[in-house]
């Protein structure tokens, strides 16, 4: 019985020794593995630090670009505003020019009518002086012709008055609008 036990103990001791040797190798492998993992961790840490640096640089660049774009857009808006206001002024000037052109035409019409009136009055005056001289010299005077010229002068002058009044009213309306 004791021999069997001793045999078993010997076998056990040998097995344990073999297992210990094997485990020492395993431990060495695990140590090697741990060192490799540590090296990898250091690499990842370095990569992370680099990426963080890159992100910060990118972020700074983005903020700077955003600021630049904002400033440029502000400038574009200011220029667009100046252009739009200049167009407003041009439109207003155009409207004023149209008004003045219309006024000029109205005044021209009124002036033309008054000129016709004055011409008629001069003609009537000349005819009247001639008739007076003829009457003084004892010659015949055509009163009917004088009356026709007088009526014609009156008509021209009334038309001139109407045209002038119309121009005045139109000018008033245009300048007030």
């Amino acid at each position, binding site marked *: 019985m004791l021999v069997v*036990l001793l045999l078993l103990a010997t076998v056990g001791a040998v097995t344990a020794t073999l297992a210990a040797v094997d485990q020492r190798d395993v431990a060495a492998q695990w140590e090697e593995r741990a060192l490799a993992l540590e090296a990898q961790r250091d690499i990842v840490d370095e*990569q992370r630090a680099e990426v963080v640096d890159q992100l910060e640089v990118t972020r700074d660049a983005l903020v700077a670009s955003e600021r630049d774009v904002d400033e440029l*857009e502000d400038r574009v*808006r200011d*220029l667009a505003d100046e252009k739009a206001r200049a167009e*407003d002024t041009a439109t207003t000037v155009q*409207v004023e020019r149209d008004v003045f052109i219309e006024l000029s035409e109205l005044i021209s019409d009124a002036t033309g009518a008054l000129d016709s009136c004055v011409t008629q009055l001069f003609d009537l005056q000349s005819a009247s002086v001639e008739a007076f001289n003829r009457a003084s010299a004892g010659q015949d005077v055509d009163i009917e012709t004088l009356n026709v010229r007088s009526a014609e002068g009156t008509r021209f002058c009334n038309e001139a008055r109407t045209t002038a009044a119309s121009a005045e009213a139109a000018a008033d309306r245009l300048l007030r609008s």
Partner: protein
Amino acid sequence: MSPRLRIGGLLFAALALAACVEPPTAPLEAPAAVETEDFELPEVAATSVERRAQEVTVRVRSLGCQQFGLGSGFVLADGVVVTNRHVIEQPREVTVNTWDGRSLAAEVTGLATDTDLALLQLEDAGDLPVAELRTAPVQRGEEVFAIGYPGGGPAQVSPGRVLGMVDGTVLGEPAEVIRVEVEIAQGSSGGPLVDRDGLVVGVVFAVEVDAGIGLAVPVQTLLERLDAGELVAPGAC
């Protein structure tokens, strides 16, 4: 301890040692590329919304029969511009100025009869960005922005909040209008009221003078008029 126990312990220890630790088997992998989460830059996103909203907002110059008017508007697809009716009534000549200095000729294609809305058609819209409309109604307290050209000046973005809806019939509107706590001045009329995503929720058309509260026609009213085609041609001088 008896010899039997000692021998048994040795055997157990031997078996335990043999079974306890396995050698590393999986190959060591190279470190994977570092992945980062998406850049979260809310301030840039907010700036983008404002920028986009300004790009779709235009300045409207109308030379009418008896008056010269300035207002705002915003661009929809196919060169259509939405503005207020009171900005361009009885037009002789309408010009649209974009934020970047373009001047585009436009024609009034329709005036709403029962709400302060009007549509213009640009002769050449080019590559103008287009506004997107939101069909869902605004909520009380919702953050919004009014974009326009107050005083005919540069485009201005005014932030504020929706105070609620108010009966629009006293203002000549067919339905409720949006009451909004936003700085609005003459010249802002016709400009869009947008939500924080840049979607148009209303068309600015008036201001409560005493309280300085802005009023806007809801987009729903605009969509109804567009769908029904209830728009009339402008009158002649």
